[in-house]
């Protein structure tokens, strides 16, 4: 037990090294995730933020090996799971779960709430008997704040917030250590969103969970994350603690992203919203150079030619941008 504890404190729970996922599409290779290295210490939350098409969901799935990475390593407690065989992986899957954006499309509409939550436990035989599995299901419903009277109703009878609670209960059913939350609150109204965020933070504290929290919503990611990575076209362009990123964003893309949020404060209404021109370019066979260069106001000739590496420019603050290496753009 003691050695196990030490293990947890020294080695990050999740680590990726040079993770890549390319898809073959008509016209070339789509670089969905391109050389991303992350570390998530146990009991911490890594926020992954970016616009649609930046590869954040693909990254989440590749970390869980729900899709096979093209290259790179995914380490869980120091062991590379991309080398695991089927039975090792099956064992591993219990420790890693995912919560999806749209709970309705990720649950079977013909199963009752209790059946959905109990399903993984029955498949994996983690409970002594069927009765024990349903007993634990009832306990899980208490944990996620679903009244037990909903055990026998079907998901279509419930609202989005309660459906998301089913998704969370199901993800917790195998007592995982690590959960990928893929836009878990994006489809919910703000008042319900706040309820679910609080729930996710409470169960993290109580069960010692580690999260990878994928979202496009910057205020949500700031609220829930310890550390954040900002992705743009498959690459991590900035990595910092939540506070540092919002106080002092360094990458021009992060700066533009933060400036684009309309704030619920009327004193700022006459301040023109800073906007970046253009839209995300194609991730199919991207040319060398910084992928943000075509939209970047500060881009120079070097940005179009040479790909910037992610480097630590301040303590704990990593940026992939030529502006900060002292050699000019």
């Amino acid at each position: 037990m003691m050695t196990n504890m030490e293990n947890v404190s020294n080695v990050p729970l999740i680590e990726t090294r040079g993770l890549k996922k390319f898809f073959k599409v008509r016209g070339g290779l789509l670089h969905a995730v391109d050389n991303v290295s992350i570390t998530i210490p146990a009991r911490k939350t890594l926020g992954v933020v970016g616009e649609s098409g930046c590869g954040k969901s693909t990254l989440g799935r590749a970390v869980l090996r729900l899709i096979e990475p093209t290259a790179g390593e995914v380490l869980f407690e120091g062991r590379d799971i991309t080398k695991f065989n089927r039975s090792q992986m099956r064992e591993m899957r219990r420790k890693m779960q995912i919560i999806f954006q749209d709970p309705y499309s990720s649950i079977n509409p013909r199963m009752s709430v209790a059946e959905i939550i109990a399903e993984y436990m029955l498949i994996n035989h983690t409970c002594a008997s069927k009765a024990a599995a349903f007993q634990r299901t009832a306990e899980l419903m208490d944990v996620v704040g679903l009244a037990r009277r909903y055990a026998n109703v079907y998901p279509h009878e419930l609202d989005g917030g309660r459906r998301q609670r089913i998704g969370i209960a199901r993800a917790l059913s195998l007592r995982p250590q690590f959960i990928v939350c893929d836009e878990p609150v994006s489809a919910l109204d703000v008042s319900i969103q706040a309820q679910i965020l609080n729930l996710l933070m409470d169960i993290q504290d109580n069960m010692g969970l580690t999260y990878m929290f994928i979202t496009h919503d910057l205020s949500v990611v700031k609220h829930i994350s310890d550390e954040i990575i900002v992705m743009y076209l498959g690459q991590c362009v900035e990595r910092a603690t939540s506070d540092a990123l919002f106080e002092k964003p360094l990458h021009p893309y992060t700066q533009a992203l933060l400036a684009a949020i309309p704030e619920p404060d009327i004193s700022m209404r006459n301040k023109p919203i800073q906007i970046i021109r253009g839209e995300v370019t194609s991730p199919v066979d991207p040319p060398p150079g910084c992928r943000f260069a075509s939209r970047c106001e500060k881009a120079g000739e070097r940005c179009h030619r040479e790909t910037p590496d992610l480097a630590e420019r301040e303590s704990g603050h990593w940026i992939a941008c030529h502006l900060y290496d002292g050699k000019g753009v």
Partner: protein
Amino acid sequence: MTQELLKITDLSVEYRTDKETVHAVNHINFSLNKGETIGLVGETGAGKTTTALSIMRLLPEKTGFIPNGSIVFEGRSIYDLEEKELHNIRGKHVAMIFQDPMTSLNPIMTVGEQIAEALELHNTDHKSHEQIQARVDEVLSMVGISPSRKNAFPHQFSGGMKQRVVIAMALVCEPDLLIADEPTTALDVTIQAQVINMIRELRDRLGTAMIMITHDLGIVAQTCDNVAVMYAGRIIEAGTAADIYKGEFRHPYTVGLFSSIPNLREKTARLTPIPGLMPDPTKLPAGCSFAPRCPHATELCRTTPPAAYKNNTHVIECHLLEGKDGWTKEARV
């Protein structure tokens, strides 16, 4: 200067089926002057879109009913118009932008044809084909799309560009009133900023009045002069943007909405969500519809619907304002 463009009085909308009646909008009042922007804020099911559809007279024919109320647009009651007069108003005087651009564009027509369509239908001053094409080019460049792309089909455009096309379609006839129903919800934040900036600029330049329907308090703060907060089909609070964002008194629901949003500037350990859910619109509570979720609710709130209390421009429907200085009670409609 302040000319009234739209006045909605005591409007209710019901969706009736054999089994039940959904009370989607209940006795709402608001008015909009020329060139002004009002934000309709609220969560899913609050009745925002139903209000918009009833202004355009686009409620589903078989199920949508208006038991009471009136909508007066430029001095004429929308519901007394003949179908033909209505066609003249829709598209030309009142235009609407929907949330999902793909569902409002025809996939087998070029974007140029779709923009020209409204002009051809409302061609009262007999513009020639060339004049219409010139106008199409003009609005396309106005929304930041090169006119050379007018022969492209919607699927060749990205989400942000599609929404620009929809906005171009809405603005091509220079409407007096633009209804934007969650115009940026499906877009990324940087594209959203571009679209909001563009809507603001165009509104200022053309003097279009606007109803901005959104659940995002940030967008309202950046675009609207006046705000109406909707809950369970009622406007529970209305006023200027300053009233809603900075007012001394606010409806407990509005307060709850604000504290549900994670703050970008301060570190908060926990959010303060509004407990519970919006009431079932087929059986609304007897008293205040927010009472079951309200931290300040009393027995009175649960049994008696609150009156509207008014302080200058600010109106709140809440029992808590009874006897407060400066607030006068108005009869409940």
